[in-house]
């Protein structure tokens, strides 16, 4: 029933012939921007987020299994790799080669036919983007293991923002310059990572992410509805992310100091710089800092609102 043409779970069926056809055509070799969308299954998303969260402040990584469908990469499942601290090591995944090979082999033996279509790793507290090491890793993967996708998850911001902070990226080939600059959503980058972010941000592009779940997933999640609400009501984001918020405020203060130093040395600030001659004027540093401070405060206010509502609901005497 699930493999019927009109079944919503049809996406879970693996078509060997279609996959072989895609591998033969290799449409991505002619268009560096070929893959535009990513569909991630609820199961894969849960596994990746739980694994990232389990790493705490240490970066962790894993691989994703799935298939492609035209310009969409479909991620069906994910599995963790036994490596840590991936941002500080040039080739962290080298420690896990044996594991990867054995896992893939055993998967095929148990009837799991999907291939590895990408890797994911976590950036605890510093946003979803690709660092220099990530870009070179992804470029190498795209050279030898296409189609391949890079996913970055920020488990710390996931907790403080109340939604999954995730980004899916693909790099451009070496030397390729995109004709128009991709518009990416603004995100706060800590001061100590800003250079690494800025140098490599034009070497990759972000894909649109959507999610899907099976009928069984929906049923299981419905069963967990009460448990979810008990957990939500008994936790508080402002208490859980206290350290992270303190770090964010420290970073904000450092950025203010930097902006002030820049301002003190220039008379006209950003208005008379060469950015004025560009088609779209660049945002001044102070504008970015203002946006960051508003974001931090908004998250705190949301946390406080939930505390106040809980206090009114559960602590006040009924009228």
């Amino acid at each position: 029933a699930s493999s019927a043409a009109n079944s919503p779970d049809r996406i879970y069926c693996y078509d060997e012939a279609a996959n072989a056809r895609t591998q033969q055509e290799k449409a991505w070799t002619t268009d560096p921007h070929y893959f535009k969308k990513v569909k991630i299954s609820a199961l894969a998303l849960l596994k990746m987020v739980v694994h990232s969260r389990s790493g705490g402040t240490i970066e962790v990584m894993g691989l994703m299994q799935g298939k492609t469908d035209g310009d969409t990469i479909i991620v069906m499942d994910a599995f963790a790799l036994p490596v840590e601290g991936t941002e500080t090591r040039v080739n962290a995944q080298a420690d896990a080669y044996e594991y990867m090979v054995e896992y893939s082999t055993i998967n095929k033996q148990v009837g799991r036919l999907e291939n590895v279509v990408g890797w994911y790793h976590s950036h605890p507290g510093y946003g979803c983007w690709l660092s220099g090491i990530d870009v070179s890793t992804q470029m190498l993967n795209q050279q030898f293991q296409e189609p391949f996708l890079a996913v970055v998850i920020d488990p710390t911001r996931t907790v403080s923002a109340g939604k999954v902070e995730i980004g899916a990226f693909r790099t451009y080939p070496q030397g390729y310059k995109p004709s128009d600059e991709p518009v990416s959503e603004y995100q706060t980058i800590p001061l100590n990572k800003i250079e690494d972010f800025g140098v490599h941000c034009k070497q990759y592009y972000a894909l649109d992410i959507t999610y899907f779940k099976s009928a069984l997933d929906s049923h299981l999640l419905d069963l967990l509805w009460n448990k979810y609400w008990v957990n939500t009501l008994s936790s508080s984001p402002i208490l859980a992310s206290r350290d992270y918020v303190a770090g964010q405020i420290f970073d904000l203060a450092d950025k203010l100091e930097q902006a002030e130093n820049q301002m003190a040395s220039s008379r006209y600030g950003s208005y008379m710089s060469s950015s004025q001659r560009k088609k779209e004027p660049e945002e001044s540093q102070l504008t970015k800092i203002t946006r960051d401070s508003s974001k931090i405060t908004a998250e705190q206010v949301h946390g406080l609102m939930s505390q106040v509502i809980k206090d009114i609901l559960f602590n006040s005497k009924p009228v």
Partner: protein
Amino acid sequence: IESEKFQDEFLMEFNDTLLMTYLAMFTNCTGTMNDVVEKFNIAYDRH
């Protein structure tokens, strides 16, 4: 929960959030002030 200790902690968190909101508001105002000062300097530059 109806205890003085809970109220103390709760109001402490409340005040901390209000303090952060206040500072963020100041930061916003400082940014706007900077924009105005820059435009003023360009418009009325002595040189």
